């Protein structure tokens, strides 16, 4: 693959400087950087909440926090990580890399792009600020189930508005991404020649446009139930709390794929580079991604096996859920086939990607176990479920995000990230991640319920182990700050093609990528 690079790339930047530059910027690279910084800050704040939870669970009994505050922490940890850390981080990658990958000069709607970012800090302040209102933050769990969410104090209202704002931000970002990918590709780049990261994001963006409004609707119903006398979810007024679960999970299950599909995309960029082979089964990867997205709309009630569904319903959702394992399996096998007989080297991004495949697949398998309705009734709301979704969300989405960050840091900063420290970050994260979350499988199988600040004595050992792991994992993430700061300050100069066999238009522009790139569209062959 080769591209004609225009020689009049310029790095100077017009317009305000200092803080106003960042507030008014419409440049996709600036906005991408802000998204990534924002999500990392949210990742750390969600992490502090997680560590407080783990500190409380270190021993049976109540030591560190009050149960009410514990419930607020579990709720806010979920909301902050999902809507504040993982989703904006992927949007940050999309902003930075999509225009570079498809040879566009910027996102389609640059001004709207600025808006979608700056809505996020507002929402984050409302969400985190809700800890300080009377009654504290919402403690209904990140799923915001009624009747709890209808009964909470004003922290719940703040959370609802924060979800509204973050939803609007995501929808605007998603529309921008779809238009950019569909309309702004360089001449010669057909859809089936796009890098896989673009494909996964295109499909993710459609998912976002389809389901974020449904979540907005669901929380709006909670809001009107709380303040305007409606009874969508109030049994006494003829409503039904189970209805909320249906609407929420109609959003919630596609949301799960919104958080993992771009991760698949990132890993599909990195593995061919370090295996020095083209991606195995490109077309099947695209179709697998699309079928995961379509299937995600018909499996929502597998989160609700314990609500008393008719057996036929349980069977339908059980089989539909298991069906998703097929396209996911296609992806995993394609990654392995890409590595098969490749000239593999294990630079930091590759380590994270291979680690991703290993632990994500473990999480996928426990997902299959949870999909079996009779088994799920036993495992529902236990630590087994907590282990499952942390294997796919932390070891899945987060590991892929780190892989992508190490992979594209040379393009962002112009310096190679420090391999030694990067590898230390990977191995610490990998080991401590498993120390934290693997014992949770056993806790769940033994019947320890989730979202409980205290527990029976027989769970003590595994909980202590998980807490030690969690603190190790949390502290390991500080290593990443060291890597990034060192990488921004200096280090080995990165070439335009920073990794030996990296493929794609983004590697045809200098490192660091100049402020304006592809003002004349490259010709993609």
């Amino acid at each position, binding site marked *: 693959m080769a591209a004609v690079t225009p020689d009049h790339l310029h790095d100077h930047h017009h317009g305000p400087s200092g803080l106003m530059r960042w507030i008014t910027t419409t440049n996709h690279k600036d906005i991408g950087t802000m998204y990534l910084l924002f999500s990392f800050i949210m990742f750390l704040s969600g992490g502090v909440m997680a560590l407080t939870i783990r500190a409380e669970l270190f021993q049976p009994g109540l030591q560190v926090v009050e149960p009410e505050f514990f419930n607020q922490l579990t709720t806010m940890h979920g909301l902050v990580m999902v809507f504040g850390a993982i989703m904006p981080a992927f949007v940050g990658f999309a902003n930075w890399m999509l225009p570079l990958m498809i040879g566009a000069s910027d996102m389609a709607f640059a001004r709207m792009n600025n808006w979608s970012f700056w809505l996020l800090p507002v929402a984050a302040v409302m969400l985190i600020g809700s800890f300080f209102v009377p009654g504290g933050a919402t403690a209904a769990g990140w799923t915001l189930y009624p009747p709890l969410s209808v009964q909470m104090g004003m922290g719940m209202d703040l959370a609802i508005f924060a979800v509204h704002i973050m939803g609007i931000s995501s929808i605007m970002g998603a*529309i921008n991404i*779809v238009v950019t990918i569909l*309309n702004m590709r360089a001449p010669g780049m057909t859809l089936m020649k796009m890098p896989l990261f673009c494909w996964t994001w295109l499909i993710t963006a459609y998912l976002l446009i389809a*389901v*974020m409004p449904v979540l907005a*609707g669901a929380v709006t*119903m909670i809001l009107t139930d709380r303040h305007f006398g409606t009874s969508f979810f109030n*049994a*006494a007024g003829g409503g*039904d709390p189970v209805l909320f679960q249906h609407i929420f999970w109609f959003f919630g299950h596609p949301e799960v794929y919104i958080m993992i599909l771009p991760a698949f995309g990132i890993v599909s960029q990195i593995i061919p580079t370090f295996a020095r082979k083209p991606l195995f089964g490109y077309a099947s990867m695209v179709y697998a991604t699309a079928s995961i997205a379509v299937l995600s709309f018909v499996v929502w009630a597998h989160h609700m096996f314990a609500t008393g569904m008719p057996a036929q319903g349980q069977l339908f959702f059980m089989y539909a859920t298991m069906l998703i394992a097929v396209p996911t399996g296609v992806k995993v096998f394609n990654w392995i086939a890409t590595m098969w007989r490749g000239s593999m080297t294990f630079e930091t991004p590759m380590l994270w990607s291979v680690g991703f495949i290993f632990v994500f697949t473990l999480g996928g398998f426990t997902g299959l176990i949870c999909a079996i309705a009779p088994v799920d009734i036993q495992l529902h709301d236990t630590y087994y479920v907590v282990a499952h979704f942390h294997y796919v969300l932390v070891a899945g989405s987060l590991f892929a995000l780190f892989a992508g960050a190490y992979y594209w840091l040379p393009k962002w900063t112009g310096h190679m990230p420090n391999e030694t420290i990067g590898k230390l970050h990977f191995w610490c994260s990998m080991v401590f991640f498993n120390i934290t979350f693997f014992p949770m499988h056993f806790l769940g199988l033994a019947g320890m319920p989730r979202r409980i600040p205290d527990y029976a004595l027989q769970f003590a050992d595994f909980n202590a182990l998980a807490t030690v792991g969690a603190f190790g994992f949390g502290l390991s993430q500080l290593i990443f700050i060291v890597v990034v700061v060192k990488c921004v300050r200096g280090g080995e100069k990165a070439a335009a093609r920073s990794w030996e066999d990296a493929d794609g238009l983004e590697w045809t522009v200098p490192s660091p990528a100049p402020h304006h790139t592809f003002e004349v569209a490259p010709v993609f062959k």
Partner: protein
Amino acid sequence: MSIENAQRSENRKLLVRLSIGAVAMFGFGFLLVPFYEKICEVTGINNLLKADEVVNTQVDTSRLITIEFDANIHDLPWRFHPLQSVVKVHPGELITIAYEVENTRDKPITGQAVPSYGPAVSGQFFRKMDCFCFTQQTLEAGERRTMPVAFVLDPALPDDVHTITLSYTFFEIAGKNASLPVSGGSGT
């Protein structure tokens, strides 16, 4: 420049279409509400407000089931209690018991009782012919009312169930959903 303009109008067209899609999906979220109610109605799930069909069955005198009655109020200035706390019944027997409710406030209040069963599985075998929970109850200031529940226990009740707790919780119905005067509930 004209190419750029053409691109811009293409982009704008797609933006409008996708935004319409997003707004439509917001509406779809609300559409799920009547859709859900229809499904519940058609499949007969969740028919808390309807009398159960009487199945003509024989009384199974070989079993004696203990039924305990419980009463709760949720943020209501009412007094609410069963007139008998325990009865022993044979499955298939028609039983009528009564609850008493009293409005202690000086203004009329509408409430709705919602039943629940322990163990939950016994709910589907507990066939209520008549119940105050099928309709909203409006009590005048200081009014006291005795309300019957007529039920038959389905003899198909699993063998390992020996005791059933029937618990009612009264919720206040406020705002436009309150039916004054009493009519059927506002649907499932």
